[in-house]
């Protein structure tokens, strides 16, 4: 496939960029203007990070199917490795590298 219309491609990137930027900036423009940040927003700031990691994990695994082969086995196995190594060493880089290598080996060579 080749690029046919650079202006159109640029417009698409511009629109997606503006929408993405809006999702990042709008909350600040709405709630972050005054000197004092509302109490409720500060509360959300404290607790949302604790809910967000669960949300992001599910988001990352959204295309995984339990019903169809390989039944999420590579994902669960690699996650178990991440959890196990992290509880053992408490080292993020170590767990991320080992978990990812295990996952890549599983999906490329085993399943």
């Amino acid at each position, binding site marked *: 496939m080749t690029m046919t219309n650079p202006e159109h491609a640029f417009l698409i990137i511009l629109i997606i960029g503006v929408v993405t930027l809006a*999702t*990042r900036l709008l909350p600040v423009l709405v709630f972050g203007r005054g000197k004092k*940040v509302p109490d409720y927003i500060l509360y959300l700031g404290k607790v949302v990070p604790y809910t967000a*990691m669960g*949300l992001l994990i*599910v988001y990352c695994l959204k295309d995984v199917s339990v019903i169809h082969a390989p039944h999420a086995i590579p994902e669960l196995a690699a996650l178990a490795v991440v959890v196990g190594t992290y509880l053992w060493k408490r080292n993020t880089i170590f767990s991320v590298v080992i978990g*990812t290598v295990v996952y890549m080996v599983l999906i490329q060579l085993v399943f």
Partner: protein
Amino acid sequence: MKKRSMKITKQDVTAALRTSLPIIVTFIVLGTGYGILMQEHGYGPIWSLLSGIMIFSGTAQFVSVTMLTGGSLIMAAVTALMVSARHIFFSISMIGRYRNENKRKWYLYYALCDETYAMLSKDDGPKGVNTSSYRFLVTLFDQLSWILGSVLGGCLGSVLNFNSEGIDFAMTALFATVFLQQWIDSKCHIPAILGLLATLACRLLFGRDLFLIPAMVIIIAVLTIMRRTIEERSQINDDND
């Protein structure tokens, strides 16, 4: 509160690099994948660079590739809103943390991707670093590594013959380690369980394309309703520590 100093020391750079390292490695590899895909569709490294600056969201950029040639502008806007809506959720929760950042604030929000959020929402950085500079550098390193990867992919194209299938699991692993550390650090586990279960339930109910927005609405609603309980239990945590 006083405005933060913007000075950057060697110590800040080292700390930021240490935090960003798993993200830098993964972003270079994933970015390369994106650059190659763009190249295959007829869009070279300049286009990847442009997209990395104008959009800077892995998901949104990957989705945009097939739209560049002949996609409708309205569909592009709607799709971008669907995949990027989670940033609203992240930005809201950073308002308290970023309130004393000067002009840097705008860069921090503009480049707040999932991975940067995971690293910067958990603490103010290691002891002794300038928090503002640390945040700025982590955000910058993450964005630069993504852009570097995508330009590299655009230049080298399919010359690179490395099977990177599954490398994106690094992001899942990263979020899992942050999840674990948060679990260890807190005694009130309601928010952690809520985030996981509400999103999982919505994924099953609404399907893979629509679940994020209802999940965020449910999470905010439950956090609001249970505010007193959660704050009391967190208070107990503070007293015990």
